[in-house]
């Protein structure tokens, strides 16, 4: 069973623990600027929104790569960058419609979310469950459940 990251901005406090866990896992350093997941603050609206790669099935980044450095991990569904193959041309960063593939000028390679091989560290680092890792086919389940309760037409609730 493949799983997917499910992000709920309502729960995010903007603490950046996810960015620290991600950069530490991949680069061995606490460094938001090297994180594959980023949290955006919308100050006027009072909103914090984590954002990262959603692992498209037909991934633009993968299709654009001229050296086939991006491949599918069939266990996790992640599109993973092979550092030994990547030539740092950055075409994938242009191809990605969501901006979630980025260049790392220190290594000369691109970086993107690889779901940490099936144990995403942003998920375990998040103190509020704003990022969870759930059955890829059932990402809407929790929201459906909430709406089911909301729209349940039992007479007591609608009275």
């Amino acid at each position, binding site marked *: 069973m493949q799983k997917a990251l499910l992000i709920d901005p309502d729960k995010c406090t903007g*603490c950046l623990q996810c960015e*620290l866990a991600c950069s530490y896992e991949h680069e061995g350093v606490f460094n938001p600027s090297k994180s594959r997941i980023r949290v955006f603050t919308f100050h006027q609206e009072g909103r*914090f929104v984590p954002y990262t790669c959603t692992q498209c099935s037909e991934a633009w980044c993968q299709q654009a790569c001229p050296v086939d450095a991006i491949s599918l991990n069939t266990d996790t569904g992640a599109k993973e960058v092979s550092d030994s193959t990547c030539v740092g041309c950055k075409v994938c960063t242009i191809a990605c419609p969501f901006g979630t593939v980025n260049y790392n000028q220190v290594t000369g390679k691109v970086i993107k979310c690889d779901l940490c091989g099936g144990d995403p560290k942003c998920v375990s680092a998040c103190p509020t469950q704003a990022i969870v890792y759930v059955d890829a086919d059932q990402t809407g389940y929790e929201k459906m459940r909430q709406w089911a309760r909301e729209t349940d037409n039992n007479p007591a609730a609608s009275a």
Partner: protein
Amino acid sequence: MSWTGKILRVNLTEGTLTAEPLNMQWAQQYLGQRGLASKYLLEETDPKCDPLGPDNKMIMATGPLTGTMAATGGRYSVVTKSPLTNCIACSNSGGFIGAEIKHAGWDMIIFEGRSPMPVYLYVENDQAELVDASEIWGTSVWHTDEWLHNKYQDPLLRISAVGRSAESGCLYAAIINDLHRAAGRSGVGTVMASKNLKAVAVRGTLGVGNIKQPERFMQLVNENKAILAANPVTGQGLPAYGTQVLMNVINEIGALPAKNMQEVQFDGAHDISGEAMHEPRKSDGKPNLTTNAACFGCTIACGRISTIDQGHFTVENKAKYWGNSGGLEYEAAWALGADTEVNDLDALTYANFLCNEDGYDPITFGSTVAAAMELYEMGVITDVQTDGVAFNFGSAEALAKAAEWVAAGEGFGKDLALGSKRLCEKYGHPELSMTVKGQEFPAYDPRGIQGIGLNYATSNRGACHVRGYTIASEVLGVPVKTDPLVSEGKPELVKAFQDATAAVDSSGLCLFTTFAWDMTNIAPQLDAACEGEWTPEKLVELGERVWNMERQYNMQAGITRADDTLPERLKSEEGAARTGPAKGRFSEVEKMLPEYYEKRGWNEDGAPTDETLKRLGL
């Protein structure tokens, strides 16, 4: 090893910037942030110097855990000599710039001298430059922040800045970072402006990677995050209500100072409480509170993000205040509200926004307004001074006007910008200033909570709750419950809290972790991250060393035993609490002080003995 090992020294007089190695021997004795920066200040400056002259220095310092994943590891401190107290000042702030300074590769930035013209410091990793700030001088913190972000086209720039209040000499100006976090107390912003330094803008992309034992560190970080999550204060109370969880609690025990500390309870407490921030407003049906918010790396997230009702009189036709920004925390809500007897939550939020927008301390500001209101009701201050504004207790209009005046540094705001000590002296009633060493009290009444009164009297930066937060024990029962009305045993309690706090303030972590953690949680995280051996005992001793060093600085600056006291109103029968559980009580500070000195190893004049200094390696 967690320190970067580098200091950026900025000589504003000469316009020079120099990188130099951190004194690692001092780092082992003073850790970082508050302790280490205080050591540098004491070594490099004369404690008798004019705080607003070029001989004073201002140090922005991170701790070894700043910028790491340790929960709350985003703190930085600003250490300098205070123009409000003439004592050592150390103001601690969260937000994001502390971690950014660290990620740019610096443990500290030391500012010395005075620039001949307004400048700001721009830092991008190991590149730093002083840049002409004439275009932003005379503008607010919020404008400066927007201007710098636009200029560099860099949304990731982190900025600390001073506003118009600091530039016009308000003695309690703050340094605001990330729009609404503050190195708030003791006028550190006034010092920054006196150096013609408008802002510090930092971008760091190097991160922190030199952890001594990375695997052990990560394991400890995760274990200790779980402890914070499971604790009722750090896991539930603070995220839901922020520090404002305290408003009703403290009012109920009769320790909420009101009406310039004439009273110990406030009828309107609920209206300005954390609970009230969640309630839908009558006018637009929205609550004051939009969400809670975290500082860098913080898994508690006590910060408040709030709005003001667009129809409220304070923001009519002022669209720039209609969005979300930093909302009320307990101390601010108390000073702006209970102490002035204003129970209008939106008016308090407006004053709080202005405190952030133009950078001044809401505790000192609110308390000074309260003192001015008492003087107004006595007829000493009149409509002549207030430009016709009725300056009575309970007036939201007066509070809003006062906030606007201090922000702009105009009119009666010039008097209010002096702080209550100088204001009350100017109008011939020094006894009405509710201060210690010239700094105003925070929101816990020493008549109803004995230990905190002793802490106020002996705090090295003047009246302050976060030098030794005995409220944890006396009210919340952490780590053990003590009776707030009893003075016995409090000298020892105060000393223990003060020493532990000095250590936490030197680490890069937030003091609020100590609702759930003690030194046995903090020391191992330091030990896994930092060079050297870090035990709980070593940390406590380090805290005591820092406390004594600050005391040495203050004594050299001219502080004596006579300054370790409370205003007459709080320690005399005439001023005794008139209502609530503490009715008839007053602070027994004079009784506690000799025992406190003795526990500290100080002589009867409050000076550390040679033996104490030797024991602490001072």
